């Protein structure tokens, strides 16, 4: 029995002519113990897919089986409980509560599970130790570096011992060194038996995955099984973002259309990649 099974899952936003298809009949099976990297341009439905798998969102159509249990139409409190017990979320923007210390943030899911304060403290402390932040136990998020903050978030995701870790661009806001730290941590979690799903725009990070999926327009275009430590075959050819005009282009008089045509040409020059990634980062809020 597969851990995650999606059958013709669609997610639509809006009505009538304004309907926006975020997921277009996605059928997908993820086995226990996989580490899946999801790539694709902004707005291709990666985040929506994560939200549906993570039970944050209902699919509009189709079925979703989590651990063989039909989960697409569960009520909000059942979904909340499944999120609490089975799924750990890691976000690009960390999403820690600024008013709570690192340990209180980590202990929060335990609070919702109804653990005693003592047990919460003990487990949360152990988790912080596991992510290497035991000396930052009582720091507030604003006192931590980006990498440390994300590690606290990872500790929080792990604290209920979930089967699935879902990370939506976990390194999107981090520098290279912190990214590596966070990804090593995820790899370690994967090694200890968890199923990990992560969204990334960085082809290099697909090295940590056993499977790479490329999405576009709400569909999975390629689904590739690969050994650990190898960059995905199509990772460098993912098209980021819709054609858009850029300040530099306007100054140079290059039209957006020309730019788009240029980009659609098969051979991507590595030198251009940095600029494009910057654009993607800028657009991150709009991912649907």
């Amino acid at each position, binding site marked *: 029995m597969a851990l995650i099974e999606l059958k013709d899952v669609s997610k639509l936003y809006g009505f009538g002519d304004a309907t926006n298809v975020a997921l277009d009949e996605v059928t997908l099976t993820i086995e226990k113990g996989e580490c899946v990297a999801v790539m694709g341009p902004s707005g291709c439905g990666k985040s929506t897919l994560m*939200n549906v798998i993570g039970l944050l969102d209902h699919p509009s159509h189709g079925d979703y089986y989590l651990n063989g249990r039909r989960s697409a139409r569960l009520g909000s409190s059942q979904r909340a409980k499944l999120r609490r017990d089975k799924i750990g979320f890691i976000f690009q923007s960390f999403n820690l509560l600024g008013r709570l210390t690192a340990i209180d943030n980590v202990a929060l899911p335990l609070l919702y599970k109804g653990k005693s304060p003592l047990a919460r403290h003990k487990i949360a402390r152990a988790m912080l130790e596991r992510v290497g932040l035991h000396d930052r136990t009582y720091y507030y998020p604003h006192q931590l570096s980006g990498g440390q903050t994300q590690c606290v978030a990872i500790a*929080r995701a792990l604290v209920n011992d979930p089967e699935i870790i879902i990370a939506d661009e976990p390194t999107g806001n981090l520098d290279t060194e912190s990214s590596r730290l966070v990804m090593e941590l995820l790899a370690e979690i994967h090694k200890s038996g968890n199923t990990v799903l992560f969204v990334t725009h960085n082809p290099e990070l697909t090295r940590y995955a056993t499977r790479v999926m490329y999405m576009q327009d709400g569909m999975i275009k390629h689904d590739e099984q690969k050994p650990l430590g190898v960059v995905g075959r199509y990772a460098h050819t993912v098209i980021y973002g819709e054609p858009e005009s850029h300040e530099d282009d306007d100054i140079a008089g290059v039209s957006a259309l020309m730019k788009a045509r240029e980009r659609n040409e098969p051979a991507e020059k590595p030198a251009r990649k940095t600029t494009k990634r910057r654009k993607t980062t800028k657009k991150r809020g709009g991912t649907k």
Partner: protein
Amino acid sequence: MNISNGNLRLAYESIRTTKFRSTLTMLGIIIGVVAVILVVCIGEGVKRQIGQQVVRYGDNVVVVRPLSEHRGILGGDSVPVGAAAPLTLKDIETVRRLPAVAAAVPLSSVSGSIKGDRQVNTPLVIATTPEFATFIKPQLKYGGFFEASQDANQVVLGSKIVSDLYNDSMPLGQTLSYRGQEFLVAGVFKNFNAPPLSIESNFNNAVFIPYDTVRNLTGVEPSIYEVLVRAKPGTNMPAFARSVQATLVQSHGGAEDVAVSAAGKTGSGTDQTLRLLTLLTMAAAVIAFVVGGVGIMNMMFVTVTERIHEIGIRKAIGATNRQILKQFIAEAFVISCLGAVYGVVAAFAGIGLLRLYTSLQPIVVWPIVIIAPLVAIASGVLFGSIPAIKAARKDPIQALRHE
């Protein structure tokens, strides 16, 4: 509902970190609690003070007053001014002949300035007969009441006017001049309970002077504004009052120009005032609680809007709607409780200050001291629940996207 399990502590933390906003919210509750407690306690105090007037004369005394009088406005020193003066010494004689009557004395206000060590221009001079002393509960502090003799140039002073007239706090044996005559201070009364919101004259400011002396001095009969009639022990008071009334009406040739009331009921207007005051209290209390509740609701709405993102995070990591609801209700509960406690403290401070600096003597009414904060907490939680429900129903995705 179980709102413990860290929710209260989280709520307290949340309130502590947003002190200013929480204080504003609390203010509504505090004002509500203070308003209710103070108004009820003051009302009760006034009631008690008015009750003490019965004690002033004793409960076997009825008061006869002319009906066509112009009453003074509520207040201490004013004396009802008899306009038509239907009460005369003859009436007193008539009343005295009733078998159940033990004693009857006239009270009459006369004008004229008084000079002791200092001059008092518009004193309250009450002309009465020596028997008046037997009607009065507070005994004399010094000396004695004047004796029954026509040419007695003696006065008895209220406790407060002493300091207006004399440098000495015990002016026994000193003299004062009134209408060109020298009077000897025979006695000084102990302090009378000065009732606020009462049409009673304040005897503390009064100079008591023998009725006959004044009559001889002015050559006319001073107009009587009030006759006190004491019944013999064991008399049925309502029936007694009726018989006094009937006797007087008969002797006035059938004119219903006097009113007889039990001494405790002298301020019938005051009773009505008190009833209105109680109603006013109730209205003020309800308004205060509603305002406090709406204040909490507004603040909770602001809190919810400000924290949509936080709600999203909490839901993403597994908080159920019910748990979010509990958290926000816990916050409303803690804010209301703190507000209620501060409110009770402030109300006690207010009662203390009123006792110290005004003639109001608020009485701590324990039931309201307990009920007011409980109602405040209940309304706080009730009004806090509405935004809490709104918070709990937020869609996690939309909440997470909200910055």
